[in-house]
């Protein structure tokens, strides 16, 4: 719990129990109240790949300033069973608060427990006694927490009503609200006035509350995506489920395919026909898509693929976070072909980059990968309202019928200075051509002449160079003259920023290079950054240091770097990074 004077400025609440306890629901209700009371929110899902009966936990962090991750400690721990307490109480802050059923309570070693507060409620007894169902313990506990944090009960009622009324009816809403009040009354008896920590109430200013997956789906709609094909996979399915509701309302279509091979190939067919098309997946689906990925490169078909990374290899840990697919998209599929790999670091960037991705795909007629992660893919964040006036749709060298009709000898794969050839759509007059998965000539017809082969390869690969001026540049954060340099991509954005603040408090100044385009490699900026640092640390969520290997293979100036890696299936906590750096100094 960060405080300024007596006022709390940052608080992290973990809710843990078994899958089926309503952990996600309870957490989301809490997150929404705090968000509407004007707090910035970041949530973190640590769920099992199972529907019921395995331990699960959800962290809701609220702050008065913008945050991008779950932070370090658990300030308030709402535990629904004994196992949860045993497992997570070591993560509790020094002055942490535990809310649990008295029956589950396990006393921690005295050295740890001095400053902590333990609130024991008869949660199960109250739930079963009053409502006949144990599940109500989550709302009773939430009611108690709302009393402790002095949250707005009226708002709480509205949120619960919004969530349940349509789906489950009046009776369920009534019972849940009753449970909340019951929890509050219990807390009044058990919690001493000095044990209350009232949270400041601010205007719910112009903020949205959504996940990275939703931001991508919304961004895709805004970017003109009208065809989406995919196969169900965690943790990317939320993109699809959102589009499944909205695309048909915009004359678009969402198709559930038999596998990821079909998903990508169908999207490629749609794109070839002229639709802005996309598919989304995670690592295993990406592996199946490697084949179509190469086709998109060879046949120069614009396509956007979103990979919401999860833990690999193989089936791995489907609902947990990792950054292990970087190699797959930069080096994957046989042969050489141009591809663009973008890596947003925040939910805001998910929206911004997906729009850019569609434009890049059409301008450079190649596959564009949006590499995100389970962390902020499924995690909810409060973000500024998206600025729709900035959405621009650029279709590159897509010819109109009027332009095409005047062309004497149309060549779909014409050799051009920038490598990008004019594109037309089937059905257009005067544009007959061939799209080939084999090597081909300027008209698209199969050609195995070594000279043509060399020219075609050069033409296709040249597009990367042409695109390089148009890409999302890496961003440098922190003081330019700092001697410690941290490099990362994707969701490490939040933890790295906080680690820098922690380092500063200890007198170490660090700056941070956020790699926002991974491929084509932003050589100039990376080179500049590396050469201005005395110590470099590369932070990433995978075993082999995939970003580190990429940097070392691309940056010309040799450099030493410490690798800070985490492949535990958990997102970085800021202190993991700052402690590591501090030790190495």
């Amino acid at each position, binding site marked *: 719990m960060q405080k300024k004077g007596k006022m709390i400025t940052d608080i992290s609440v973990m809710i843990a129990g078994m899958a089926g306890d309503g952990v996600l629901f309870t957490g989301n209700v809490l997150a*929404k109240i705090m*968000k*509407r009371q004007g707090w910035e929110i970041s949530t973190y899902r640590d769920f099992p790949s199972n529907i019921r009966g395995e331990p699960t936990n959800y962290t809701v962090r609220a702050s008065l300033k913008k945050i991008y991750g779950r932070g370090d400690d658990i300030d308030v721990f709402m535990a629904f069973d004994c196992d949860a307490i045993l497992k997570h109480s070591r993560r509790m802050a020094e002055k942490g608060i535990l809310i649990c059923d008295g029956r589950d309570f396990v006393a921690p070693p005295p050295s740890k427990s001095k400053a902590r507060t333990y609130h024991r409620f008869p949660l199960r007894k109250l739930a079963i006694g009053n409502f006949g169902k144990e599940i109500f313990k989550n709302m009773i506990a939430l009611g108690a927490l709302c009393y402790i944090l002095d949250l707005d009960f009226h708002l709480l009622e509205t949120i619960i009503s919004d969530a349940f009324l349509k789906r489950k009816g009046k009776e369920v809403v009534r019972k849940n609200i009753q449970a909340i009040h019951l929890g509050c009354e219990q807390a009044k008896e058990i919690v001493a006035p000095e044990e209350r920590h009232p949270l400041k109430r601010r205007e719910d200013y112009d903020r*949205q*509350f959504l996940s990275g997956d*939703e931001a991508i789906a*919304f961004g895709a*709609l*805004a*970017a*003109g995506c*009208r*065809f989406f094909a995919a196969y169900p996979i965690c943790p990317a399915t939320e993109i699809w489920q959102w589009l499944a509701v*909205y695309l*048909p309302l*915009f*004359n*678009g*279509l969402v*198709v559930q*395919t*038999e*596998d990821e*091979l*079909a*998903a990508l*190939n*169908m*999207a*490629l*067919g*749609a794109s*070839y*026909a*002229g*639709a802005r*098309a996309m598919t989304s997946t995670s690592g295993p689906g990406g592996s199946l898509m490697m*084949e179509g990925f190469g*086709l998109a490169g060879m*046949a120069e078909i614009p396509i956007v693929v979103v990979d919401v990374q999860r833990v690999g290899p193989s089936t791995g840990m489907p609902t947990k976070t990792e950054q292990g697919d970087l190699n797959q998209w930069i080096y994957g599929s046989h042969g050489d072909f141009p591809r663009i790999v973008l890596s947003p670091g925040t939910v805001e960037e998910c929206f911004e980059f997906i729009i850019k991705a569609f434009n890049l795909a059409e301008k450079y007629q190649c596959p564009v990968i949006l590499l995100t992660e389970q962390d902020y893919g499924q995690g909810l964040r409060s973000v500024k*309202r*998206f600025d*729709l006036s900035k*959405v621009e*749709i650029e*279709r590159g060298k897509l010819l109109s019928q009027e332009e095409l009709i005047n062309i004497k000898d149309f060549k779909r794969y014409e050799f051009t200075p920038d490598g990008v050839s004019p594109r037309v*759509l*089937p*059905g*257009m007059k*005067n*544009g*007959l*051509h*061939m*799209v*080939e*998965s084999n090597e081909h000539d300027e008209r*698209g017809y*199969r050609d195995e002449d070594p000279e043509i082969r060399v020219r075609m390869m050069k033409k296709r690969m040249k597009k990367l160079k042409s695109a390089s001026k148009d890409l999302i540049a890496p961003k440098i954060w922190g003081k330019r003259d700092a001697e410690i340099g941290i490099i990362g991509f994707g969701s490490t954005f939040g933890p790295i920023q906080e680690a820098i603040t922690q380092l500063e408090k200890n007198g170490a100044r660090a700056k941070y290079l956020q790699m926002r385009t991974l491929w084509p490699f932003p050589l100039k900026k990376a080179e500049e950054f590396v050469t201005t640092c005395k110590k470099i640390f590369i932070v990433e969520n995978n075993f082999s240091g995939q970003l580190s290997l990429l940097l070392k293979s691309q940056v010309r100036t040799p450099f030493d770097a410490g690798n800070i890696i985490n492949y535990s299936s958990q997102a970085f906590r800021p202190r993991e990074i700052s402690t590591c750096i501090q030790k190495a100094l």
Partner: protein
Amino acid sequence: MRKDKDYHLSDPTWCKGCGIYGIFAALKKTAVALDLDPEQLVIVTGIGCHGRLNNYFRSYGFHALHGRTLPVASGVKLSNPRLSVLAISGDGDAYSIGLGHFIHSLRRNINITYLVVDNRIYALTQGQTSPTSETGFVSVSTPYGSKELNLNGPRLALASGGTFIARGFSGDPAQLSTLIEKSMQHNGFALVEVVSPCVTHNKVNNYQWFKKNIYNLDDDSNYNPRDKMKAWKKFSNEKKIPLGLIYIEKRPSYEDLAFGKEVEPIVSGDLGVDAARLEKIMEKFR
């Protein structure tokens, strides 16, 4: 009216006597009969000898990955239902590497025609056993004879919810052309399997063999192609290969269900952002 030459891009170079010549001729005949505009026709082919057809037939063409003709063709058709979309595969493409797509396309019933050129061998890779090669078939990949049961595509299609299932013979381009013509007029997914000899690699299933083993259901006035059980029986007789329109059923196509009537194709829609509408949607993220 368009003529044969309007669809003839160049002279094919398949092996002399290859069955695919008959298919090429039948396709051109169909195109003339339906007066298809080459610029409104997309032919998606797979990997195999049939895949060269795009090089000889004048239309928009897409030579897809091995086994992936149907997903590509489906994406094209769904984005622009005004186009005529014809997908062509070989037996390896359709019944082996692309089999998943085959079954699900039948289920989906998108309005495309699918020609499967079945020569019972992998010809382009120099003569390996295919899923339609009979048990015991000897080839470079099964020198001691195939141990597997051969796959019956049309029967599988019937079981998977096919709404138009026909079979032609590349040695009879006239009947084949009639079948393709009907298939292109069918609302929904239409399968036309074409049994077709490979003169270079398959010395067993040659013209004489096919002629001996095929019979024509189109000649049988008592046969009712709307009777599913009868069709099942016809397909189940492994000894004799029935040709003709074997099964047809009326079922709404995917497009009928997804778009209803008179909707602008996805590709002709305006991509511009309707900001007011999107702002309203954004309100829901609270």
